[in-house]
């Protein structure tokens, strides 16, 4: 669904002007709630030879761009009864010079079976990483730009449909939660059928005083078919090949997230890894470390993040065109490695509104392209300023 961007932004700001704080609008008392979040962001690179693109094909280059980061989220919650509720959340992102695409990110029925067990049925953002679920809610995050090396690995397949169970364990002194999700995803991108089914994941979280720790493992059977992919797979899957190049395989995701926050200090660590047998898909290891210091309404922070490819052995068992294609695939994957040092500040200017700025120094090896469209000449600096809100 496409709607006019100016109208949408204007409508949201009109609502914001009528707001008195960070609480929801109760459209029907105790029944129907409306919330919104969003980001107006401006970013620029100091290089004119590379471009950074997002999944909506909006770019950051050497001219200041507001289209890459800007977005608006809208949420409606309806409490059917004490135990039952229905939630819909849509995200509008820019997909053209003056238009936004509105996509349903969350749409589910929630049931509190007991005070310790919550069940959700419907569509959710698949919670693979520590901040996956709130990745679009800039106001809930410290950064102006979440670490690209970790969260840049998420793509348009970030939502799936199914069942999500959350169980609070009867522990004392610490809060322990187990979450299990069983979902599936079907999509079509450029004549390619994408199927991830069934996605099965388990997350275990522990909170103790100021510290939160989250461990997650998920199994994602993936299947891609259509376009030129099937003929490509036939070309590469030869008995002499060093590696397998199946289009149907199983991805395993692992995630460790830690967050420490007190009145003065913020610390966040995230480590992710995905494993897969087929060399058609990348195996990745990435991590980020963030340290911040609160001072009144300000937070200053530093962040380091790094991404490396793991399945990067050259293909020596194939010959001719198959060898060229396979090694080209592997070489391109290897050239995506990069690391970033970032410094930033957040100012909570008023209730529900934060203004942020961040400088990222992105390092790629000579000849590699990292997350860009082509290899940059030297390291790249990226500057971001944003206004994030949540009401």
């Amino acid at each position, binding site marked *: 669904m496409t709607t006019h961007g100016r109208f949408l932004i204007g409508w949201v700001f009109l609502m914001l002007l009528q707001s008195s704080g960070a609480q929801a609008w109760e459209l029907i008392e105790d029944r129907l709630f409306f919330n919104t979040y969003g980001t107006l962001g401006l970013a620029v690179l100091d290089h004119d030879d590379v471009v950074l693109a997002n999944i909506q094909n909006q770019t950051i280059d050497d001219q200041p761009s507001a289209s890459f980061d800007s977005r608006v989220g809208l949420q409606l919650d309806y409490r059917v009864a004490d135990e039952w509720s229905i939630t819909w959340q849509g995200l509008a992102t820019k997909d053209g010079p003056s238009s936004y695409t509105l996509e349903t990110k969350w749409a589910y029925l929630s049931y509190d079976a007991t*005070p310790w067990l919550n069940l959700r049925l419907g569509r959710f953002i698949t919670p693979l990483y520590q901040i996956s679920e709130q990745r679009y809610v800039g106001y809930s995050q410290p950064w102006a730009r979440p670490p690209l090396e970790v969260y840049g690995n998420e793509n348009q397949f970030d939502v799936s449909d199914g069942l999500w169970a959350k169980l*609070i364990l009867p522990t004392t002194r610490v809060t322990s939660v187990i979450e299990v999700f069983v979902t599936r995803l079907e999509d079509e991108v450029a004549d390619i059928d994408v199927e991830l089914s069934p996605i099965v994941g388990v997350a275990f979280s522990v909170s103790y005083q100021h510290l939160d720790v989250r461990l997650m493992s998920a199994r994602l059977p993936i299947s891609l078919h259509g376009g030129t992919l099937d003929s490509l797979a036939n070309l590469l899957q030869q008995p002499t090949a060093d590696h397998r190049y199946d289009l149907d395989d199983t991805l395993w995701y692992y995630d460790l997230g830690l967050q420490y*926050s007190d009145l003065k200090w913020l610390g966040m660590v995230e480590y992710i890894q995905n494993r897969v047998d087929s060399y058609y898909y990348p195996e990745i290891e990435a991590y980020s470390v963030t340290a911040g210091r609160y001072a*009144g309404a300000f937070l200053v922070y530093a962040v380091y993040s790094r991404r490396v490819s793991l399945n990067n052995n050259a293909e020596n068992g194939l010959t001719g065109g198959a060898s060229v294609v396979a090694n080209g695939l592997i070489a391109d994957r290897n050239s995506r490695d990069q690391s970033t040092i970032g410094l930033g500040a957040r100012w909570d200017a008023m209730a529900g509104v934060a203004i942020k700025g961040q400088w990222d120094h992105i390092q790629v090896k000579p000849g590699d392209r990292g997350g860009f469209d082509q290899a940059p000449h030297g390291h790249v600096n990226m500057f971001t300023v944003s206004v994030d809100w*949540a009401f």
Partner: protein
Amino acid sequence: MKTAYALLSLLLLATSVPAFAEQLVVVAGPDSDISRLSIEELSDLYLGKRSTDHEGRQLTVYDLDDLAVRSDFCRSALSMSLLQLRAYRAKQVFTGRGRPPRQLAVEELIERVKNNPQAIGYLPRDRAGGLTIVHSF
């Protein structure tokens, strides 16, 4: 350099919330069988991590709409600033992990706590007459 420090100090002063001098207490209704809540339980309840106390009672929690009192409670009970709490609650709301407590004026909070034995809220101690104090800061 001195000018920069002075400007930064002024900015910090202008944006900080003044400390609330009165002692705060957490209260339940006079007929409530809740007798005591630990600081850990209060933190879990107000952060939406649990909805029950140590005896399994499902509780309804309320916030005060007074900014200074709420800020003071936030620091005392949750070891958070109000700004940190707002960011945390945005995460809770937009990931379906819970809604923030309803914000009420003192009189309305007292009324709701009196009428619901499973409800709690925080108040300055001098406004807690006739109510059950379940935690003092």
